[in-house]
């Protein structure tokens, strides 16, 4: 029976080629518009560390002056000072803890055929790598060094390893950079978290760094302060060490706890820490520590720009227009087949049978719409990549998106066709056979 309905509906679609294509295209356009905007929201707010995002936390402390706010109206800064970064990391109260910041410096490969270049560097603690599940191609990261101690070690990105060492296992090789000799201890695989949740100061989708060095290297070699660096004290002096000793913030502080339940304990540790620092004359403001897990942090940073949400709502309206359009066209189409339906009813087909046949026909149109919609969606997303180059790192059409597209397309076509279908089924056959 199903097969018969299928051939019947295919024949109907074929006999009203123009109208059918028009209906499917309309649905396809609506689906494509809303799927393009939806996939942007979906891809941008995708969890970067799905299995542990609820126990990896971003730490904020309010070390600002009494009468000003680091971030209006009265929020603590999003980065911490050098002093706090080191104190909290070396207190080791969490499973992993690491402060990170972006900086840069000249890399001058020993091989004269490779021109020196300005390397973008992430300076951080060794626990940065296991905390954020950074994939290693060769070697491994360094361990967190004890306070004040450090070795000249460097972890390369895959492309930097390609550039300097031609992609071989370069672990153990030496690399002249920042005016000193460094030893390569690891090479990481392609790693481009989007959004770049652990440091969004230079852009939410900023490309990955070329090299990774221990945080203490930044202080020892006085590397520039990249990213956000805010100060509220006016006279901190000119020296590099003065900046580090000041309340200037520049370091993104993250911790991973073993269990979500440990959060309260960690929060009370932080409170004690601030109280203890206040006794030393710091933290003039009331304690205002903010501990956000990755999801909360991404929401706080409004990773999905309001533009995208506006597009999304406009595209939903667009989809509705397409559905109403398809509904009236479907109604038209089904009315033209009234005679055939009446004949089938008169020959003994039940209302249910007519209904199933109409339903199959609309589902077929829905599938056609999904096909058109999906192609337009792929086309649209490549257009988005051109318009927003920074998004190209994460724009892909994955399986869930494909399934949602087909599902919504069929569902909306059936919805659009429901009223006309019922109308056709309710017809008294006699009226149309005369």
């Amino acid at each position, binding site marked *: 029976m199903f097969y018969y309905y299928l051939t019947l509906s295919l024949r109907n679609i074929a006999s009203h080629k123009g*109208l059918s294509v*028009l209906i499917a295209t*309309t649905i396809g*356009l*609506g689906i494509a*518009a809303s799927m393009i905007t939806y996939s942007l929201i979906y891809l941008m707010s995708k969890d970067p560390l799905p299995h542990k995002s609820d126990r990896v936390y971003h730490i904020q402390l309010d070390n600002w002056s009494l009468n000003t706010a680091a971030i209006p109206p009265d929020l603590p800064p999003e980065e911490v000072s050098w002093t706090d970064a080191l104190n909290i990391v070396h207190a080791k109260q969490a499973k992993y803890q690491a402060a990170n910041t972006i900086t840069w*410096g*000249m890399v*001058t490969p020993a091989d004269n055929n490779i021109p*020196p*270049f*300005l390397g973008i560097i992430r300076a951080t603690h060794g626990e940065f790598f296991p905390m954020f599940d950074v994939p290693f191609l060769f070697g491994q990261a360094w361990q967190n060094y004890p306070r004040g101690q450090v070795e000249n070690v460097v972890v390369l990105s895959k492309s930097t390893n390609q550039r300097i060492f031609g992609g071989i296992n370069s672990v153990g090789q030496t690399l002249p950079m920042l*005016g000193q000799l460094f030893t390569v201890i690891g090479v990481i695989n392609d790693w481009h978290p989007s959004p770049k949740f652990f440091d969004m100061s230079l852009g939410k989708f900023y490309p990955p760094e070329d090299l990774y060095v221990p945080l203490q290297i930044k202080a020892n070699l006085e590397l520039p302060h990249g990213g956000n660096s805010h100060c509220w004290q006016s006279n901190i002096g*000119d020296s590099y060490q003065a900046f580090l000793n000041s309340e200037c913030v520049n370091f993104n502080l993250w911790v991973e706890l073993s269990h979500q339940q440990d959060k309260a304990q960690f929060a009370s540790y932080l409170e004690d820490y601030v109280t203890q620092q206040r006794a030393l004359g710091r933290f003039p403001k009331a304690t205002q520590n903010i501990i956000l897990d990755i999801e909360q942090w991404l929401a706080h940073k409004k990773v999905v*720009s*309001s*533009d995208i*949400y*506006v*597009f999304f*709502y*406009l*595209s939903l*309206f*667009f989809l*509705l*227009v*397409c559905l*109403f*359009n398809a*509904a*009236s*066209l479907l*109604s*038209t189409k089904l*009315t*033209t087949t009234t005679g055939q339906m009446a004949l089938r009813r008169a020959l003994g087909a039940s209302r249910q049978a007519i209904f199933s046949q109409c339903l199959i026909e609309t589902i077929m149109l829905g599938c056609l719409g999904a096909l058109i919609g999906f192609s337009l969606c792929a086309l649209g997303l490549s*257009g*988005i990549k051109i*318009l*927003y*180059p920074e998004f190209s790192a994460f724009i892909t059409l994955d399986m869930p998106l494909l399934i949602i597209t087909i599902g919504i397309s069929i569902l909306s076509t059936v919805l659009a066709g429901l*009223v*006309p279908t019922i*109308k056709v089924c309710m017809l008294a056959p006699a009226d149309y056979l005369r």
Partner: protein
Amino acid sequence: MSDTNQSHSNTMPFSRIPFLPLLRTLIRQKYTFTMLVLQIALTLAVLSNGLFIVSQRLDILQRPTGIDETHTFALTSSGFTQSFNPQNSIKADLDALRQMPNIVNAVATYAFPFSGSSEWDELQTSTGQDEITVPAASYKLDEHGIEALGLTLLAGENFNTNEVLWQTQTTKTFPSAVIITSKLASDLFNTTDWSTVVGKTIYINATYGAVIKGVVEQLQAPWDAVGKIENSIIYPRVITRNSARYFIRTQANKLQETMVEVEDYLATSNQQRMIRKVQSIQTIKKQVYGPDIGAISILMVVIFALSIVAALGIAGLTSFNLVKRKKQIGIRRALGANKTDILSYFIAENIIQSTCGVLLGWLLALGLNVFLVSQYALPKLPLSYVVIAALCLYILGILAILKPAIKAMNISPALATRDQ
């Protein structure tokens, strides 16, 4: 209504439209009529809000910068050896660049319109902590800055060479003379007579006093941090760091070749540094405004596709109605209705449908806007955009039915006498 009254046949075509039968027909086709009206209403809501957002983004793109955007480029020179002396390097580079025949002038500056991050100072007209302050983006330029950027001096004069301070990043000494933009001058002194502003003293960050030496027409802030993009202040300073940025203005039509020339020259003239990020200001502008250009493109595609869909829907429905009414039209023609009567019937029907859609759509447009205003801080939708979008929809509707309506007009009266 007046089908048989021949004396009316020469009057306006719309006076012969059978309004009552027309309305009755529309009411009988409840479902398709509702769908069409809803479609037009939603289209109006999207169209008016979309056009409004597009026009706002276009305004942002067209904000005047005050600089010569078409003949300028910037580059970065990063010294990387221990012996690299930034001040000597900047002086040597700028001297050489200013000698080049294709270059109008060049200046060392980290800030220029679209350069991104910049420092903002709070300015006031008298000393004291509790005065009202006006924010201004700070530019640090030497005496060549005004010509290199292509600014227009409205009053007062340019800095002279001995006023310019060469400083490192951490030196806090403030110069005694400044040049400000006209918008900043009017914010500070509430006047548009720029010559009266020259010679007045302003206080920077409640501490440092400086005399206004000149007023330039426009100089856009490097980024819109506080919604005061036209407020800028220029200090006669050159900040020396290992990494310097040069802003270079070329003769007309020489931009491309000069960019190559300058990069080649600088790369070889001093081997202790590297030249990076050689980009024309228009390229940088495009990157900065990328999201706005993206938004405009996406909205235009949506508006265009939506118009097509709506038009196709209306056209499809009218064609279908035409098939159903063929015989009816033939009878009307046989009974004396002329071609214009048939055409005007379809047009009138379309106008009635569009009007219902527009009225409902107006409410939807305002509703959608209220939602967007509350959620995403969009400005309120002016009525004019609803009117413009409504006019577009009327025109679109008429265009969509034109082909089927003309086909209807040409239906032969003889059809009435045939069966089927």
